[in-house]
Structures are given as C-alpha cells and as structure tokens.
C-alpha cells in the first residue's frame, strides 16, 4: 500500500497531472453541487472563453517563467499592445493590420524589456517592476482623453467567429511545439533547473532569455487581440488585473514559479480555467462575489504547498 503510494508520489505524472486532475475534480464537484447547471455545455464554453486572454498571455509567460525568472509586467505590456493595436485599427480599419501591429508591438516591447535585463544586467524582477508602471504610464499617454471604442460589428463578428479561441489554440500549438518538441523549450527549462550548469552546457542565458521574452511577446500580441475582441472598448483600466492573474494562473496550473523541469505550456490555461471555474462555480452556489477572491487565494496557497517539498532553509531566490 505504502509502496504504491510512494510510487504514485514519485511518478513523473503525479506532479505533472496534479493541477489538471484537481481542475477536473472541481468541475465534477460543481456539476454535482449545482445539479448539472454548471456542466451544461454553454456554461463550460463560457468559462473557457473567460479564461482565454489570461490563458494566452500566460502561455507566453511560461517561456519566461521556465527559466526561473518572474515577469510581473505581463498585464501592463498587454494593455499597451492592446492600445497600440486598437489605434492601428482605428487608423486603417483593417483587421490584418491590427493583427500585424499587435504581434510586432508585443514582440518589440517584450524584446526591449528583455534587453534591459540581458544587456544591462538588471535583474528581471526589478526590470519588470519598473516596466509595470512605465508601460501603463505610456499607455495612458497614448490613450489620451478618449477611450477607444472599436466598432461593435468588428468585435462581435470576430467574437462570434471564435477568434479568441482560435488565436489561443494557434498560439498554444505553436508554444507547445516550441516548448515540448524542439530544443528551445528544453534549453529554457534547463536554464531554470540550473543556470550555471546550462551556461556550461553552452546555453547562453542572455540569448535564451531574450528568445523567451520574444515568444512571450507573440503571446502578448495574441492576448491583446483577444482582449480587443472581448472588450471592444480600450480604457486605461484594460488588463489592469492581468499582471497578477498571469502569475496566479501559471502557479495554479502546476508550474513552479522558479521554472525548471516542472514547466509545461498547459499550466497556463489549466490555471486560468481553474480561476474561472472557481469564480463561476462558487457564484452559482451563491457565494458572494466578495469572498471569491479570498477563496482563490486560499486554494492557491494550499496548491503551492501541496506541490512542493518543504525546504530546510528559507526560500528567497529572486524575491
């Protein structure tokens, strides 16, 4: 009995599948508790749609987190890219242009953030703390006195065509292929496992960190497009909670925030969906909106505790 348990615990699948399994269990519990209302396909689709923006951006962020670095400015970056892309659309009224601008802007901004760190040797965490404020200030300046109201026809048309879902799937496939099926992901993970050793294996930290940020930039671009479709109106408050939601999703999805071997692209979407499932399910059960966030926090802490071994000393690396 004990040995079986140990085997289960030791198995590489346990840590990998813990979060997805908990997600499935949550869904089952809610489905039963609400007498099936929760699990009707329409509701489930809605839950998935709610998680798409966070899922897309966080999937990109997985590349950064895998290297053991934390970027807490994902939301601010997305907000700025969203604004730029929306402006581009208003100027040209062309959806392809908007797509292009979003991707290019995402890649450029993330690239610059990475360069500050790799080129000028400032710690990633500090760079992103500054970026969080800087980028949102820039967004505010660009936005000026007017909210950007995108034409309803365009956004709803794209929404009906499931563009956010398609964007997510496309990016998820790209990301998964890159991360799990090419050397890139393995190298990033190896940097997260032990950066000195990775350097001595020929994986230059500065180069791969830059690549990770660029890929995350593509994710930000896609996420920005989804935001445009879902929100329709771009204000200074757009994506204001995304900074933290991203981290929340990734860690809830079963990844260590210090990266390493437990990094998976699906963590992001699993975590993001878990948050929306909790929100939706608890609301259905009549839990007040106010407590939802606390429940999220508690679940978050418990999951993190359950999935890590308690170290002897105090953890502190990179904050």
């Amino acid at each position, binding site marked *: 009995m004990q040995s079986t348990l140990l085997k289960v615990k*030791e198995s*590489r699948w346990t840590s990998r599948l813990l979060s997805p399994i908990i997600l499935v269990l949550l869904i089952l519990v809610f489905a039963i508790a609400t007498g099936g209302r929760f699990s009707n396909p329409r509701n489930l689709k809605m839950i998935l749609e709610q998680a798409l923006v966070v899922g897309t951006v966080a999937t990109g962020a997985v590349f950064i987190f895998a290297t053991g670095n934390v970027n807490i400015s994902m939301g601010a970056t997305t907000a700025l890219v969203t604004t730029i892309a929306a402006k581009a659309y208003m100027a040209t009224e062309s959806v392809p242009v908007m797509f292009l601008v979003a991707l290019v802007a995402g890649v450029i901004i993330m690239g610059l953030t990475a360069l500050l760190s790799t080129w000028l040797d400032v710690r990633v965490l500090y760079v992103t703390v500054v970026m969080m404020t800087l980028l949102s200030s820039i967004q505010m300046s660009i936005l000026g006195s007017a909210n950007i109201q995108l034409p309803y026809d365009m956004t709803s048309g794209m929404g009906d065509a499931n563009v956010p879902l398609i964007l997510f799937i496309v990016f998820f496939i790209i990301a998964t*292929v890159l991360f799990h*099926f*090419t*050397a890139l992901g*393995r*190298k990033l*993970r*190896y940097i997260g*496992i*032990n950066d*000195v*050793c*990775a*350097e*001595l*294996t*020929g*994986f*230059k930290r500065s180069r791969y960190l830059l690549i990770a940020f660029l890929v995350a930039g593509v994710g930000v671009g896609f996420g920005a497009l989804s935001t445009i479709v879902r929100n329709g109106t771009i204000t200074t408050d757009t994506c204001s909670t995304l900074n933290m939601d991203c981290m929340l999703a990734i860690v809830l999805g079963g990844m260590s925030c210090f990266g*390493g*071997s437990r990094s998976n692209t699906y963590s992001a979407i699993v975590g993001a969906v878990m948050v929306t499932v909790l929100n939706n399910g608890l609301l259905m059960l009549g839990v007040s909106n106010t407590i939802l966030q606390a429940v999220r926090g508690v679940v978050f802490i418990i999951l993190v505790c359950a999935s890590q071994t308690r170290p002897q000393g105090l953890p502190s690396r990179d904050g």
Partner: protein
Amino acid sequence: MPNKGEVVLEVKDMCKYFGVTVALDHVNFTLKSGEVRGLIGENGSGKSTVSSIAAGMQKASSGEMFYLGKPWAPSTALEAQKEGICMIVQEAGTIPSIPVADNIFLGHEDLFSFGPFVNHPKMVAAAQALLDELGIGIDASVVTGRLDLQQCKLIEIAKAMYWKPKILVVDETTTALSQTGRELLYKLMRRLADEGGSVMFISHDLDEMMTQCDAVTVLRDGHIIGSLNKDEFDGDVMKKMMVGREVKGDYYRSDMDPYGEEVVLKADCITTRRDLLCFDLELHKGEILGIGGLSECGMHTVGKALFGYEKILDGRVTVGPQHTVVKDVETAIKNGMAYTSKDRDHESVGLPGSIRDNIASTGYIKNLLVGPIISFKKEKAYVEKEITDLSLKCASQYHSVNTLSGGNKQKVVFGKWIGGDADILILDCPTRGIDIGVKASMYQLIYKMKKEGRSIVLISEELPELIGMSDRILIMKDGQVTHEAMRADHPTEHDLIEYMI
C-alpha cells in the same frame, strides 16, 4: 583550564560515512592540553572530518568522544563553542555587510545589551580591545566587506579566541594568510597552548607543521597512520606516511599506450583575473594530461579557462586543427570540448531536473525527427543508451538527479558529455566523493575514451589517481607549473608531492 598534559579530548573508534564513501574508519585519537597538534594527510584523508565532528559541525556515523572526561556529542557548532571547542574553517565565516565588531560578537549581542538595545560603542570597544590584545591591527568599527580575505580570517580567529577556547581547531586557514598573518596565528596558537588550551592544526605546509606543532598525527584514507613527536619530525618520513594510499585491486590503467603528436588544445600564455599568469599548456590527441596540486594552486581555474568559462585577459586558448580561439563556452562546445566541474552539484548537473533532462541536454541536434522537431523516441533511446553504457543505477530516466548518489550523479554528467560526442574532456575532480566501485568504472571509462582517440585533461587532488591514469602529469603551485612528469618515467607520489608543497 585543565592541567597541562591532561587528556582533554578522546576520540574512540569513530567512523564516518558519506553515503558509501568511508571518510573515517575506526579512528582513535587523543588530544592533550597544552599541545599544538598537527594533523596532516592528503586531500580527503579525513583530517578535517574528524576535527569538524569534534567541533559539532557534523555528526559521526559511529564511535564516541570524551571531552574533559565526559561523553561528548555536540549537536551544533554553537554548543561546542559554548563548551570551549572552536573551529576556524577554510570557507568564509564572516558576514561582509556588517562591521567587524558585529561579526566578532555575532549571536552574542546579549553581552552588550540593556533591554532590547545594544550598546554598540561598548561592543566596538570590547572588539577593539580584543583585537588589540591579540595584536591584530584592524579597526573594529569598519564594515567587514572592506577588508581582504586575510583580515577576515583574522577576525574569525579573534572571534574564536574571545571565548578562551579549550580546544581551537585551525583548518587550513594559513593558506589565506600572508607571512605576517601566519606569524600572528602561530603566536596565538602558542599562547593558547601555554595557557593550558590545545590546538588542532591542519595544514598542507610541512615546514609550518614542523616548526609550529608539538606533535603531528598523520591520516590517510580515514585511518590514523601514526603520530610523531617534535623530536621525531622529519619531512621525508612525514611525506612517506602521507602517501602510499592503499590501492584496493588494480583499478587504474596498467598499459603504456602512447598518444598522438597532434596538439588538439593549446593554452598560449593565458592570464586570468586570479591564479593564472602566463600559463601554457598543450594537450595532444589521445592524451590523458593530469594536472595536480593543492586545491588553491590554480588548477581548477585552468579547467575553467580552457573551457572559456573564465575570462582570459591576455593570451589565448586555441582548439582543433584550425586553431579556433576559444572565446566562450559555446565555441568550446562547438569544437567538441566538454567540462565537468569540481563543484558538480552547482555547475555540472541540474539537480532538480530529471536524468533525461540532463543527459539529453547535449544531444538535441542528434535526436531530431524532422526539421527542428525532436523525436521523443530517439531521445529516449539516446538517454537509455548512456544509462546502460554507464550502468547508471536509477529507477527510470525520468527520475530527478537529486535522488541519486554522488557516483551516479557523476555518471549522469559523463553521460551528458559522452553522448554529446565530446572529443576533448576537461575533467575536474571527476571522482570526488565517489565510492571505490564507481571510481573503478570511471577509470575504465576514461581509459576507454582515450582509446577512442579522445583527449582528456584530468585535474585531480588525488595523486595516485593522476599517476595511475595520466600519460603526462603537470604539478602546479601558485598558478605556475612546477614540474612535469611523463608516464614512462613512472613517477611516485613521493616525487610529485615535493613540487606541490
């Protein structure tokens, strides 16, 4: 203080195992008050282990100790310190960001406190008085980080001396000290002994040992080989006792195979930030080049510099027939070089990663399916092959390296580089902390690699290993090569140790 000549510490039948490695093998040892006792032996002979157990830094696997006639089993260094056994270790023991006085009284702020407050001037004054009394010319109020290594070491000595220890353990501290610092330390040791305390003094410098110690105990492979009193001191005798490690079975290579003429790796008058000044080296095809010396002689820097990991300020390292300049790790690897660090856990292997993560890290290009897509099947087979070839003991390739023994960890490192088809291997202490059995297979492996035409730089702190494996041995001291020996000349440990110390 106990009376002079009284036995203060007695170690009985002590054993210490690190995994399968035997560090101490039924050691018996007594220390009398009023004596400065030297402990000598090669790297890894067990001298630091026995003293650190007495000072509460680690626990023995079996055996017992008596201190001042009572059973002695300190659980922490702090407990030992309170009871009067202090140890000064090789590694830094001061915190750079706080003043000298704070370091001296670290953890003992109560001595100067009134209520929750600390009287800092009083603390500084006490520290200054202590330093002055010991003749250490350091201002107690400056921040420790501004001092150099030697001064930091002296502060640690002062910190230990404040408690008027009955036993002071000085573990290879003198290497960090200049002549003046050393003399100061000698004086303090002597004073302590005169006052009825005792000193356990560990050093590689035999001259130092002979002038400073009242008696010397020689250890080898975790055994006490013998003790010499001051009147019996003789450098040659001591060296003879230190060397001549027991070799169980024939696990080094026994052949006299030659090596090629072609120079595959060349260091041309390289200078690094520390240690190396105009260092030259040539490695030939199929050669095992041994580099030996004491830990701080600069040989570990040589390994890093050759691999492009240590910044080379002047001169250059070239590799291969085209004499490509190795400017960074990437070029080195591209040109078929590999490096295993002495600090394996931090630099050569990703501990939290799986065996597969580690071994496959050099083989991504070989395991492609189409384009840049990696074939999981190929990768699995690739890793599996290394695991079988090296007879790596593990449940599966998905196991975390954390869970493996030292020897198997090292095998993972080897597997990683051999799988990557490295032609030039720089192995820094490849058998460090590995049990005999695995060691033997490592040696076979190294020999096999030589036969395959690979060239190997073997950096080691163990002379028998160098003598047993190398085609050519360089002995280093203070960043310079002091001696070169060929395999054909059958050098002995005794010959070589002359040039190290």
